[in-house]
């Protein structure tokens, strides 16, 4: 399981990286943490002519708290940094919780948010979180930068709209209403594995009614997605067993889960509904100050 030969470019700036990508005419791959790319190389599922290493672009490794209450995150930020960032914990605790489910220590030390988003695994936590949190992704290319909504970034399993000479540089998370409640539930057969499914919910309790509801799921479609019908089922009334059931039903209705070795579509549909229910309960408990009761 040795990778095929490639040439190696160690980029030290975004411009250098983009230029190197362009120079290879689609035959180059960006390597950041390499935690998804290198296994594919080792299995010889990919044979790029060149790897453009962006680990030397230090200015892409940052977590900045923005004045509006959001965050700007550099694409080279390691999973471990996100997991332990006080700003993440304070402003986006749902993201902090999701990071607890990402792989293992050695992978988190190396893996990056930009790499995870660009790899676009349907069962990875970070694509789901940027979808849930309505992130804006900044992409650099030969012609300059462009901004994309997270929802427009993913284009099917393991596929994004990134051009071959583009590099994801920054992830901007707009602020969440504070205080808010959140919930995150995931199921994998083995700790740290890619999930069979996961659900995340963020909401506020405004005068006893759910508001600002965001609900996203993953592992049950080619890309993670927010489920508008489920969000609608919750908005404007207190969260109850009935609204939770309605939201879960809406999720099960909306998703089109894949079949694979570890779970059928039917099972995944069942599973994601159950995870959604748990995530809503947790979010509502937190939003209404009853977090002690949250699972």
């Amino acid at each position, binding site marked *: 399981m040795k990778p*095929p030969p490639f040439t190696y470019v160690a980029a030290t700036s975004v411009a250098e990286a983009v230029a190197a990508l362009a120079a290879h005419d689609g035959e180059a791959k960006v390597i950041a943490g390499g935690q998804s790319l290198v296994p594919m190389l080792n299995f010889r599922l990919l044979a790029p002519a060149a790897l453009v290493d962006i680990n030397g672009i230090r200015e892409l490794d940052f977590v900045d708290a923005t004045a509006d209450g959001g965050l700007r995150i550099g694409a080279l930020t390691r999973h471990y940094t996100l997991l332990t960032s006080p700003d993440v914990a304070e402003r986006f605790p749902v993201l902090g919780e999701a990071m607890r489910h990402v792989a293992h220590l050695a992978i988190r030390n190396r893996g990056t948010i930009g790499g995870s988003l660009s790899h676009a695994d349907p069962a990875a936590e970070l694509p789901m979180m940027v979808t849930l949190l309505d992130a804006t992704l900044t992409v650099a290319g030969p012609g300059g930068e462009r901004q994309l909504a997270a929802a427009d970034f993913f284009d099917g399993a393991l596929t994004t709209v990134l051009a071959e000479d583009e590099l994801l540089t920054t992830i901007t998370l707009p602020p969440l209403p504070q205080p808010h409640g959140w919930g995150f539930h995931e199921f994998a057969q083995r*700790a740290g594995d890619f999930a069979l499914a996961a659900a995340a919910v963020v909401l506020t309790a405004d005068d006893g009614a759910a508001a600002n509801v965001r609900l996203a799921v993953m592992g049950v479609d080619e890309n993670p997605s927010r489920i508008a019908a489920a969000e609608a089922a919750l908005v404007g009334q207190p969260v109850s067993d009935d609204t939770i059931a309605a939201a879960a039903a809406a999720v099960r209705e909306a998703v089109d889960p894949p079949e694979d070795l570890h779970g059928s579509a039917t099972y995944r549909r069942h599973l994601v509904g*159950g995870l959604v229910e748990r995530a809503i309960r947790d979010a509502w408990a937190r939003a209404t100050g009853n977090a002690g009761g949250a699972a």
Partner: protein
Amino acid sequence: MDNLPEDLPADLNLMEMRPKIIGARVQRVEDPRLLTGTGQYTADIKLPNMAHLAFRRSEMAHATIDNIDVSAALAVPGVIAVYTAEDFYGQITPPRAESKTEGFHSTPILPLADGKVRHVGEVVVAVVAESRYIAEDAAEHIEIDFTPLPVIADPREAVKNEVLLHDDAGTNVLVDRTFGRGEVDDAFSQAAHIVGGDFRTTRKTASPIEARAAVCEWDRGRRTLTLWSATQVPGVIRDTIGDVFGLSGSHVRVIAPDVGGGFGCKTCLYPEEMVACAAAIKLGQPVKWVSDRMEDLVGTNQAFDEYVHAELAVDAEGHILGLRADVVGDSGAYSIYPWTAALEPVQVISFLPGPYRMPAYAARTRAVATPKTPLGAYRGIGRPTATFVMERLVDLAARAAGIDPVEMRRRNLVQPHEFPYRTGSGLVWDRVGFIESLDAVTDSIGYDDLRAEQLKMREAGRKVGLGVVCYAELGGIGSRIAVAPGMPINTGVETANIRIDATGAITANFGTASNGQGLETTLAQVVAEELGCRVEDVEIRHGDTSLMAHGSGSYASRSAVLAGGAATVSAREVRANVLKVAAMIMEVAESDIDMVGSRIYVPGTDREMTLKQVAHTYYQEMGRLPKEVREEVPLESTRSFDPYLGTAACASHAALVEVDPVTWGVKILKYAAAEDCGRIINPDVADGQMRGGIAQGVGVALLEEIIHDEDGQILTASLVDYVLPSAVEVPIMDVMHVESENPDNGTGFRGLGEGGIIGAPAAIANAIADALDIDIREIPITPEKLFRQTGN
């Protein structure tokens, strides 16, 4: 035992003063090197001018090979040679494991596929290059034209012989064997309850973290082949490689250096070992092959693939009356060497009656060739399947009869006064703690209280279940019983050679080989205790065929029993001779002296010598001893040990599980196991064997499954999809040892290495069945299966 010297000191007080070494928690001798990266595994071996081997493997399950074009591969810079099957004609005589078992048909083990491929992952072309990287590059450039042949992946279909995998065998049914005892039909006609049905254990692979590896060097001048191999059985490999290449045993040396786990999968001769040797001979340069994980998942022998139909008949009080079984084992593409395709499917019906009184038994088993990776040995061999099926049957019968499952077992276990007990399949259980281990485990978990607690948890809506199982196994098997039925080699004996050299150092050589279980420590403990020295005074050597005339290796829970037995008799003989020599030097009667901690002394006096002084006098000081002493009283002994029959070992396991009704994930809340391995040499090592086995059993029960599609393609060719348990999935375990005496095999040691994995799948299955009030018929028990089975 008539082969034990009668040299036990008469003075019992002395015995009691002696530090107990057997049974002590001695820290392992192996650890300092293994903890510091200074051990040497096969992949660590580097020889001058060494070349690297990679394979092009079949991507087809069953196909003819019409043409192989290697020209592009040969053109890759750094490639030294590319070989196909024809290149080894005349050089390699493919071995063929024969068996005297009824209805057996043999298959060869080929170095490379010849004219036809029979499973995905079969080696077709070998590439030797300056580096593994280059060899893999070149392997990609080989063009193979295949014509697909029909694939019958299901062994239940393959028995019809509509498509033959091996034309010369004339059938896909490589073994067809029946066992019977008593009047089974009568038993079933008298039964108050009959339970049973179809059970299934799907394919697993042992997956040691060190995959297989081989380094071969050919000394042209001396015509001597040295093969370092990550194998459990260097002796078997030496004997076979000699035949394969027409070399005498003195010209083949097989070394198993530090081995990174085996669990059975490294007990066979593999094609890659033959190819590494053949290439090294052809090229006159050392050749190294290290299996990568993908190769391991398609090319290393797999296990556990059986379909079992079984029924149990009990009377109104739950007493077992009879058992019927029909097993179809999926043997994969080849009958493995040396154990044959009979190995696992026959073990299933051999062990199915379990530790229970079984008045009537009828069973049939078939080993069926299919175009998949061969089925080989994996820890427990057949017994995990047998125990899963039998223990499900016992629980089903208990439920049908309205009896508590533990009480059901107590009623049916062979009782102490009934030993030795011949089971329905003909195995004999010698005196062993069936009841004692069940008592120990139910006491440990507090069975009655736990049942009450379980009721409360269930009333609160939690899906919690408790499973308790019992099993018996046979380890340390002597020459009377074949490890695999009718196979061609003697596995019933091991030999120790212990000597004190001119410096006074003690070296103990063994024909067996450790693959990580700590034999250098446990055998040193046996030698130290029996000889009268300290553990650190003994150098244990093993895993090298140049040490001994004959030996096989570690498998079938045999090394502690057989090598431990050989160490015992050999050390006693050396001790007797040391005392005889020392008595002459010290001019006292032999009966007046003792040796403890390498110190030879006359009790009650200050007269003593060190072993070093005795050795120096014996070897170097001419004239101090009569010449007859050196000629007739060697400070060395080579003795073999053959326990003749096997020794029974047994255990009871209990698992408390909770199932999440949303995810259908299973969490093991509590786990306990009590086993009887007889006299324990090192409690840490014994414990470790159990814990490791149970962890593998957790994987077997809940996670691990090699999956092929109907075209014979493997869908689980990575550790992402073949899911091994991590520290999170493996529970805390309460492991207990019941050391029942075994006076019949000389040492009191019983085999232990396999037990954990035998009981755990059954215990977890019974617990899940209890939690959800469902029947469990198949392992692994995945969330998907539970979801479907609970009516979704």
